[in-house]
């Protein structure tokens, strides 16, 4: 793994610091950078093109499903900040999804506010709630945090039912579906898909920037070794809380998009099972990677629905079993498996 150190040391004061193992640099080993998959950019570009073309070639129901994959992908992107990058477990992200969805439903459905305004409001509110909950909760160690977040997820649906005059109670609320501007000539499902795609693109870019920023590095450092991070001046608590705030915001935004796409919200859409399925999806998609949440979104969209046909408790059980399988056999999740497969193909092509 190591590169040779080919006589690049300084002189003078530094002469004393020549501590490397002298070894001749050969071939790739002489290089400075880790090898990158040569088609990474090409793949990304192809994916972007495919994503933009999809609503024009797929039938409306498939477009709807793909939209839901993106919606859940955004929520998982946020949850991944806590689980994959922060190394903490949250069983409560369904609650933030619910809050984002109800903000959209009440603002546009009851108050008649133009629908785009719901997005920043939901983002701000859930960010604030996430910070407020994250600060005390993240000081607790793993199992306690899981309990606190689980309780949050469990409490939200009853609270929604309790305040029926605003929320519509267990009957739920219907949400006016954003209609495409007439100049676009788009169908409703296509417009919704493109809207969600745009938000998802921004969300992914923001998450990427966040992770490569000073705060993102600090978060990873805290996950890897809290004490070592602390004696370099990183405050573990505040970085974890901030990550929790960000992740709640992603879930809130996803909730608003959910309300737009589904056109209806009810307490039963955001049960504890949803929170469990979301956590499973992060683990199965691949914690700590940026592709993981998208693959996880596929999981949330298709697997629970399929499992539900066998019975109400089945999605939770299936999620639990899949977590165990993935943790045992593929700890880097589906994203890790894909990366390994791509690496294998690249090596084979490189040789041949």
């Amino acid at each position, binding site marked *: *793994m*190591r590169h040779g150190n080919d006589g690049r040391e300084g002189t003078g004061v530094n002469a004393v610091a020549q*501590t*490397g193992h002298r070894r001749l640099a050969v071939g790739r080993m002489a290089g*400075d950078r880790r090898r990158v998959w040569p088609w990474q950019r090409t793949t990304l570009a192809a994916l972007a093109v495919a994503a933009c073309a999809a609503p024009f070639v797929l039938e409306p129901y498939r477009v709807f499903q793909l939209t839901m994959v993106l919606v859940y992908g955004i929520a998982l992107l946020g949850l991944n900040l806590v689980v994959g990058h922060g190394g903490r477990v949250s069983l409560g992200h369904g609650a933030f999804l619910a809050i984002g969805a109800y903000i959209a439903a009440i603002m546009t459905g009851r108050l008649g506010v133009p629908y785009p305004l719901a997005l920043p409001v939901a983002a701000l509110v859930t960010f604030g709630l996430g910070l407020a909950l994250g600060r005390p909760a993240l000081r607790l160690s793993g199992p306690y945090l899981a309990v606190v977040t689980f309780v949050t997820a469990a409490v939200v649906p009853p609270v929604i039912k309790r305040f029926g005059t605003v929320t519509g109670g267990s009957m739920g609320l219907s949400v006016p579906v954003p209609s495409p501007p007439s100049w676009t000539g788009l169908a409703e499902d296509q417009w919704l898909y493109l809207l969600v795609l745009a938000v998802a693109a921004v969300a992914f870019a923001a998450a990427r920037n966040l992770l490569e920023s000073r705060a993102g590095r600090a978060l990873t450092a805290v996950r890897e070794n809290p004490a*070592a991070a*602390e004696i*370099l*001046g990183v405050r573990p608590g505040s970085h974890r809380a901030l990550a929790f705030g960000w992740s709640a915001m992603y879930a809130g935004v996803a909730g608003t998009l959910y309300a737009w796409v589904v056109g209806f919200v009810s307490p039963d859409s955001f049960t504890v099972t949803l929170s469990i399925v979301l956590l499973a999806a992060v683990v199965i998609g691949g914690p700590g990677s940026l592709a993981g949440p998208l693959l996880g979104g596929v999981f949330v969209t298709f697997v629970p629905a399929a499992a539900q046909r066998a019975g109400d408790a089945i999605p939770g059980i299936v999620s639990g079993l899949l977590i165990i399988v993935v943790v045992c056999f593929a700890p880097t999740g589906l994203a890790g498996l894909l990366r390994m497969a791509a690496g294998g193909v690249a090596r084979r092509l490189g040789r041949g």
Partner: protein
Amino acid sequence: MTVNGPGDHPRSLFEAPPGTGNGPAALLRVHGLRAGYGPARVLHGVDLELAAGEMVAVLGPNGAGKTTMLRALSGLVRGRGSVLLDGTELLGRAPEEIVRLGVAHVPEGRGLFAPLTVEENLRIGAHLRPAAERAEDMRRVLAWFPVLRAHLSQPAGSLSGGEQQMLAVGRALMTRPRLLLLDEPSRGLAPVATRRMFDVLRAVGSHDRVAMLLVEQDARLALEFTSRALVMESGRLTVGGPAGWPQAGRRPSLFRPGR
């Protein structure tokens, strides 16, 4: 090289070297430091003085409390008593504040962030530094440890033991410390690599006037590179004497032959 080079003056075992006593030059003054983990008391009143730029070894058997002392100094473990850095009390402050005041700690086992690259590890060392000065800090550290430059974009976990130790020290230097606490930096290194590391440490100490508290198992090696050595024994520090002073008769069990 160091403030009190060995052989400057003949002095008695119990006399503090010039510049470390009550003079204005003392950078660190520890008095009656007590610390522990919950009900378990580990340090029972540690006294210590260190001059700016001075390099002092801390020897002692396993479990004596050396690591605990460094943790107390950097705020990871709550301590009682008094720890003055240039007149500022450190006890009761958060680790982050203590780093800001100029104390860096290379922990036992290095504490690298293995999946992050060498460059990212160094950048986390600069977490509290003003953005404008980070590039200069990085350049400085890479000048001390040029080997790291070839590995900047490699995960820290893929480096050799010696390189990892250099990274751990380099990362601590990114905080621009006045006092560097080193917890067994030679652990797991070949003697040659250890010597090179200590050479760099000594050069950094004299060039940038960084004081160092070096916890070390290999007494002979430590005495070769430091101006004096202290011995930690069941939670108390006792004076070991100036480096190079033949100790064999005094505590034979402690001074294993060097490797």
